């Protein structure tokens, strides 16, 4: 018999019951809750007279709707306020731990889980948010769920699931200087497409993945969902353990030692068989910029906007044409000629300390281009913000004419006041460039933090790797 993949191991460890038709009841170790997808779940719980199965498995935070400026004045928008207040009330009623808006630990749910050590290797982790795949960077099986599943997990600590297939994305070699985890994952999506991972759990492996920090691995797993996979995984190694040791929710002392022993097995066996294997050469990856309205519509920064006329598949051609029209771009335009109106550095993809450091490095000693209306820096959590301020990064950004905000999802999806105006173009470190994602009629180009920072300085996209050499 062949060995097991990491996904096989995580799955097998959590099966409570197998149904006659093969669907499984899977135990959930950690449930993360935010204000957008939970109110109806709590409502359903109450309506049915049910209570949470295991209160201490839950951790809640408001992130999507919270303001990123003048927070002491509360939330101006009544609908946003109602969602946040509803979360506060539900957590208080059921005794669930919540990091409130004025808590320094508050932040984007996928940033605070790992930061607190509430995300641990070997866990199953779910949240009513598709970017829950982020937590797979720790060798945990983590995936997004819908609101009725949120209610299901609250009531039963379990989910009914079918096992996905195994995919391995092996990234060999080393990334060039200036090329980041974001570029790597965009290149993966360019290769396999936004539906390429549908039905699979993707394990990311290879020298380039091993060489990433936990922050970088989170960026990669975060966007597994943009490749169609509900979950992304990276095996546990020393980098994982170094990151977790001493975090508030992580085990300590003898329990830590015991956990580490168990976590040593959290990798795919050498003889494990994957249903699909994709090989990518890290050295060939350049900084990436999306040009369309799907993350797979992406090219290297030194390339040009592609021409739909060269696309053979009619469905793809049509979506390319539609994307170009929405993005107001012509085929053949060099990416470097695209000018941006706003820059957003933030989101659960790229708002951790390392991302802010990379952006600040580019910004240091420069000024935001006059043509760029706004460059927003939104840390992923209160603790990231505090760390950045201790390192003086806030000053670097402020002196360059960037705005330094409070943590939250912000312009990643524009549910709060931070948004694009119709027709505006944004260099964004977030994960989705869908129509209207950052504001009605807004145009999004996904890039790495350093690339976004460089676009803010120059007013258009520039190749960060060339800039470094100049």
């Amino acid at each position, binding site marked *: 018999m062949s060995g097991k993949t990491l996904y096989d191991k995580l799955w097998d460890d959590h099966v*409570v*019951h197998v149904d006659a*038709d093969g*669907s499984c*009841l899977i*135990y959930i*170790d950690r449930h993360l809750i935010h204000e*957008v*997808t939970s109110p*109806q779940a709590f*409502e*359903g719980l109450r309506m*049915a007279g*049910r209570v949470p*199965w295991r209160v*201490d498995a839950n951790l809640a935070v408001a992130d*999507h*709707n919270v303001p990123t400026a003048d927070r002491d004045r509360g939330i101006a928008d009544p*609908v946003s306020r*109602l*969602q946040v207040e*509803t979360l506060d009330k539900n957590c208080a009623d059921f005794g669930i731990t919540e990091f409130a808006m004025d808590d320094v630990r508050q932040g984007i749910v996928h940033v605070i889980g790992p930061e607190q050590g509430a995300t*641990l290797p*070997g866990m199953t982790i779910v949240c*009513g*948010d*598709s970017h829950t795949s982020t937590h797979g960077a720790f060798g945990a099986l983590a995936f*997004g*769920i*819908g*609101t*009725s*599943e949120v*209610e*299901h997990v609250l009531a*039963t*600590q*379990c989910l*009914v699931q*079918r096992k996905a297939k195994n995919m391995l994305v092996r990234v060999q070699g080393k990334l060039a200087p200036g090329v980041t985890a974001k570029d790597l994952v965009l290149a993966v999506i360019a290769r396999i497409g*936004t*539906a390429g991972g*549908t*039905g699979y759990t993707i394990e990311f492996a290879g020298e380039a993945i091993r060489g990433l920090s936990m922050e970088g691995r989170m960026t990669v797993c975060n966007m597994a969902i943009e490749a*169609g996979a*509900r979950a992304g995984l990276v095996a546990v190694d020393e980098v994982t353990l170094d990151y977790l040791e001493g975090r508030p*929710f992580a*085990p300590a002392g003898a*329990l830590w030692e*015991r*956990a580490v022993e*168990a976590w040593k097995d959290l990798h795919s066996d050498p003889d494990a068989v994957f249903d699909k294997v994709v090989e990518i050469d890290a050295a060939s990856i350049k900084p990436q910029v999306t040009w369309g309205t799907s993350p797979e519509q992406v090219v290297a920064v030194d390339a040009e906007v592609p021409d739909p006329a060269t696309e053979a598949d009619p*469905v793809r051609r*049509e*979506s390319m044409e539609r994307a170009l029209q929405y993005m107001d771009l012509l085929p053949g335009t060099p990416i470097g000629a695209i000018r941006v109106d706003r820059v957003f550095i933030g989101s659960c993809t790229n708002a951790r300390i390392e991302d802010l450091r990379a952006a600040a490095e580019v910004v240091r000693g420069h000024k935001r281009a006059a043509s760029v209306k706004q460059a927003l820096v939104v840390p992923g959590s209160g603790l990231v913000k505090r760390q950045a301020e201790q390192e003086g990064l806030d000053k670097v950004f402020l002196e360059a004419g960037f705005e330094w905000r409070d943590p939250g999802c912000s312009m990643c999806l524009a*549910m709060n006041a931070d948004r694009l105006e119709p027709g505006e173009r944004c260099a964004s470190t977030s994960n*989705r460039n*869908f129509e*209207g994602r950052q504001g*009605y009629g807004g145009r999004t180009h996904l890039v790495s933090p350093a690339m976004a920072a460089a676009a803010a300085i120059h007013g258009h996209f520039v190749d960060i790797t060339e800039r470094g050499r100049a």
Partner: protein
Amino acid sequence: MKPFKKFTSRVVPLDRANVDTDAIIPKQFLKSIRRSGFGPYLFDEWRYLDRGEPDMDCSHRPLNPEFVLNLPCYAGARILLVRKNFGCGSSREHAPWALEDYGFRAIIAPSFADIFYNNCFKNGILPIVLDEATVDRLFSEAGPGFELTVDLESQTVATPFGETFHFDVDASRKHRLLNGLDDIGLTLQHADAIRAYEAARRKSAPWLFAVP
């Protein structure tokens, strides 16, 4: 949840691939803390010429006359015909809520995004996967007056001309949909197994239960 019965209905052909959940129900509507009433905002950005906001009265909003859902010949349709990877993007369950609230009971596509596919069953909508060629055919035939009959019991879609297409659906999802069963109640039938699993894990991996 209401039991899913066999029905015949008009079919709305929405000829687009990769329709994401942001398009199905734009994010400003996610702010609601209710789970009903999203039907009027379904495909909001395509359906209306102005920008929709939560709690807006849609009866006086300017309609996009070109958008297929606005064509009078498709009024009251309960079947939506779409292209591949329908429901991709964010996991918002508001998407099936909006489709259900609008009146759709079945969606036919060559493929669906995983989370969306799951969410449909939990909300009384049947997502039907037919092969690309069949979907192409249905698109070429769909138009005013075209109807299909969806029968979950026999797992078939039938044209008025007596042609039937078989579709696959897993047995437990079918059972639940046909009987309108609540997922949580079904799971709680296994409460003892869940407790036994928990007790064993507390011994073998106690750090998973540690509270700071």
